[in-house]
């Protein structure tokens, strides 16, 4: 760029800078802008003075009048605006903002007669406008005067000769008075007038006491409009009847696909967070309905979600229907097909239909990604374990070298009584596979097995298998038998502690106490501390507070470094009422 060009460029920049500066200066000189600025900075008194200056020369300036009102409210001096409001009305008798300010100012001054006069004057100017009466009602409500507010709203209705005038306002008043039938009546009109009110209406009517709800639903049912149906659907959902709500929705869907889809999507938003059986079933139904109406590309994802919802609701037939449809449709994306196949196989395993699940796994083997395939295979292995077929289960896991697979193999080896290999596998799996609960359970299991020197104990395997099958009676008896054959510090103490826990859960407290005491051996300090804690807990549940206190105190003093000392302190606190029972 040559000097001339550079000079011209600088000239332009300077001109722009000056122009900007001049604009800023002009803005700063304009009292209205300065007043806005002061108000923004929280200098309300100074802002109010400037707004007054503007209004002195331009009394009908709505921005200044509203600015003055905003500045006086935090100063708690709103009534001081009355002279300016009066002048504004005189200067522009049709200014709705001036009337509004005047109503609020007289209300703040607690002069209801003046409020009424301003409203009457305003209403004479705008006879078909609800605003004067709305402001009047709001003014009355600011003094917690619901009766006058209602009177103002009803007067508007009478004068305008329309039954739905200020319906939302009257509905809210009725709800405040706990007059829910009137509130419902008004809300129906308000929603019909402006469908956007539906959310507020539902929140307001949702508070209806349970005994009045059937009457409210009947009342809404009498109104045949679509808006009333939608309101009823939302209320039924809120009041714990999502299935009834869905049936109602399905029966009243608009023939227009777009409107119907919108209604279904809104219903889905209402039920998506529900965890009850009916809520999950309703979620499945609405997703299935959406899948049938939306574009083909969106369908499989919705069907898959519907299947999961049905499965969670325990509706296996519906879940099967959805999953088979998704998995069997070759047009679907591979990840959708594999997701559906994996869910279907999991469902079959849960039902105990392991052979059928195996077939499905082979059928979908090529479409399942490696991770999904291994997960499915582990769930199949667990299915065989449940049926007592340990060899088949282990066979399935033979080529699974994942941490989860190794952990599962460890458990199966334990069920077979192969203690040495079970320990190896559980140790190899480490504490990180699966969920936190699974990892904790595995670590606890390993802690029980580690002191045992025997390589093979089929009786112990059976005991753990019984335990995993939910047969705690057989498991505890078997554990006691095995413990009797082991040295206390060779696993005997750990097994007694576990058996004691099972017996305590069964209510066999005497046997449990005996086993806990037997597990407190100095050579196994970690087990002794845990057994002392369990003993303290048991004594507390038996109401033997003094014994429990002594036991827990002994635990804290004898094993101060034990990780379970905080639990012992908490139990102590609970036993003496120092913290609430949880």
């Amino acid at each position, binding site marked *: 760029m040559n000097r001339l060009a550079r000079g011209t460029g600088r000239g332009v920049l300077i001109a722009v800078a000056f122009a900007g500066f001049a604009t800023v200066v002009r803005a700063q000189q304009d009292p209205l802008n300065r007043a806005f600025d002061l108000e923004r900075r929280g200098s309300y008194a100074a802002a109010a003075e400037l707004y007054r200056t503007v209004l002195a020369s331009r009394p009908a300036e709505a921005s200044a009048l509203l600015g003055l009102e905003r500045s006086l409210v935090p100063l708690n001096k709103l009534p001081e605006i009355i002279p300016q409001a009066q002048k504004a009305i005189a200067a522009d008798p049709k200014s709705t903002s001036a009337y509004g300010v005047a109503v609020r100012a007289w209300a703040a001054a607690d002069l209801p007669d003046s409020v009424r006069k301003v409203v009457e004057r305003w209403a004479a100017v705008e006879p078909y406008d609800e605003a004067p009466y709305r402001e009047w009602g709001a003014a009355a409500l600011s003094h917690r005067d619901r009766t006058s507010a209602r009177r103002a709203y009803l007067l508007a209705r009478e004068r305008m000769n329309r039954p739905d005038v200020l319906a939302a306002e009257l509905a809210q008043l009725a709800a405040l008075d706990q007059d829910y039938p009137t509130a419902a009546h008004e809300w129906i009109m308000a929603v019909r007038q402006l469908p956007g009110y539906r959310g507020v209406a539902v929140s307001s009517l949702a508070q209806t006491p349970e005994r009045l709800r059937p009457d409210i639903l009947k009342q809404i049912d009498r109104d045949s409009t679509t808006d009333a149906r939608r309101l009823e659907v939302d209320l039924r959902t809120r009041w714990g009847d999502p299935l009834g709500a869905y049936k109602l929705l399905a029966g009243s869907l608009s023939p227009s696909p777009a409107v119907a889809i919108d209604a279904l999507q809104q219903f889905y938003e209402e039920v998506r967070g529900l965890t009850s059986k009916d809520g999950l079933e309703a979620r499945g139904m609405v997703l299935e309905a959406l899948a049938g109406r939306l574009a083909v590309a969106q369908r499989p994802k919705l069907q898959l979600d519907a299947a999961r919802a049905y499965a969670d609701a325990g509706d296996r037939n519906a879940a099967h229907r959805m999953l088979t449809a998704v998995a069997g449709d070759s047009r679907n994306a591979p990840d959708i097909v594999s997701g559906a196949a994996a869910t279907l196989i999991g469902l079959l395993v849960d039902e105990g239909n392991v052979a059928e699940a195996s077939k499905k796994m082979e059928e979908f083997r090529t479409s399942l990604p490696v991770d999904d395939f291994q997960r499915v295979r582990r769930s199949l292995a667990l299915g065989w374990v449940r049926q007592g077929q340990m060899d088949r289960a282990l066979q399935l896991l033979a080529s699974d070298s994942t941490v989860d697979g190794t952990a599962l193999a460890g458990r199966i080896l334990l069920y077979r009584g192969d203690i040495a290999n079970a320990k190896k596998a559980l140790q190899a799996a480490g504490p990180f596979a699966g969920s936190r609960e699974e990892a904790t359970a595995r670590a606890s299991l390993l802690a029980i097995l580690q002191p045992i020197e025997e390589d093979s104990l089929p009786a112990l395997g059976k005991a753990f298998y019984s335990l995993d099958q939910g047969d705690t009676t057989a498991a505890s008896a078997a554990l006691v038998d095995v413990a009797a054959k082991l040295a206390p510090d060779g696993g005997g103490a750990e097994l007694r502690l576990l058996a004691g826990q099972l017996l305590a859960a069964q209510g066999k407290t005497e046997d449990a106490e005996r086993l806990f005491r037997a597990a407190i051996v100095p050579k196994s300090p970690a087990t002794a501390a845990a057994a002392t804690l369990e003993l303290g807990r048991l004594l507390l549940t038996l109401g033997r507070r003094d014994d429990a206190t002594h036991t827990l105190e002994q635990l804290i*003093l004898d094993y101060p470094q034990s990780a379970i000392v905080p639990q012992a302190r908490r139990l102590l606190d609970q036993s003496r009422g120092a913290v609430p029972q949880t």
Partner: protein
Amino acid sequence: MKRRDFLLHGSTGLAALGGLPVVSRILRLPLIAAPWVLVPMDDLQSDHLKAYGVAFRVLERGGRGEWFLNYRGGSFLLPSDLTVTRDAALAGVRCEPLDEGALLQIRAEIAQGNMDAIPLEKVPKVAVYAPPNAQPWDDAVTMVLQYAGISFDKVWDTEVLAKGLTKYDWLHLHHEDFTGQYSKFFLNYAGAPWLADMVDRNTRVSKSFGYPSVPAEKRAVAQTIAAFVEKGGFLFAMCTATETLDLALASQNVDIAANYADGTPMDPEATSKMDWSRTLAFQNARLELSPTVPEFSDIDGHQVNTADRRQQLGAFTLFNFSAKIDPVATMLVQNHRDVIPDFYGLTTSFTRRTLKPAVTVLADEAGAPWVKYIHGEHGQGTWTFYGGHDPEDPQHQIGDPPTDLSLHPHSPGYRLILNNVLFPAAKKRELKT
């Protein structure tokens, strides 16, 4: 016995205990070699709240200790006997053994800084004012006393009116409404079983003592409490009890109760007829005249139950006092935190405008027109008011689950309550101001 003598006796007494190692072995505690333990109250403490209980129980057993104001968060010096170390171990309270040399060093440090050592020598007899059916979990003080293991008696109107409070040193009030208007829940919670029970219980008591109404009876209770302070008692109040106690005292000759409470409407000119010379802390408050608004006056800065007046919660800051010149105020603000998140109550805070000039502000919210924690004298006694309901449940609602203090063992808000419990145990001495 002078403090120095007591310290000397304490240490020689322990050293003379020949059987100590045997007892130690029995209890499997570490051998106690040092004559003292320091209970630190800074961030190293494992349970700040229970530490007060350990110190309190030393006094309860007839022992003595010292409160090292502003030293490591307001630590305690306790004799290192087996009972103390066992008690601390059971409570999970951190104690540090201290020999004479280390103690001398600490004393030198205290002498040089804004710190002081206050002897703790008398266990205060503590009473908590609460209705007989009150749940322990609905009162922060009851909760923290139980958690710390500090023993107390429960008293209510029957005990206060029949026997007075002469046998107690320290009295706590929580969310009682001394204006007799049932916390102004009467209209909004009409029909709730707990409210019906409260009304029934109060009505029966007021009748049994021959008062014409519950507000009249509550005013008599308030006057008895004021007399207790005047004669040298220590009063600690939280939540609504702070505001309504003073309103009841000031309304000697004016009806400030709504129609539902005493059968006559509130005097519309009540605000101008209040006699503030009778109150402990407040003056010139404007009363809330509407029976449906669950607020009493503009003493409370936050007005939590009135949507259009409710103020946001901020945080309050404890004042720093001179430990050697103003030990009382210093004791009341001992803490390991200076800034504490605020918490609502029916009365959350106290507007500065309504404080009497002699009131000492212990904590406030910077820039706000209200303060949180105040203290003052009345006759020969003292009072402390602490706004809010539960320091660890900032938005406490009726029916909320109880606060479990084992989840908040370091709560700085609860520490302020416990400072008040221990403060009457401190040896009185001539103050420089």
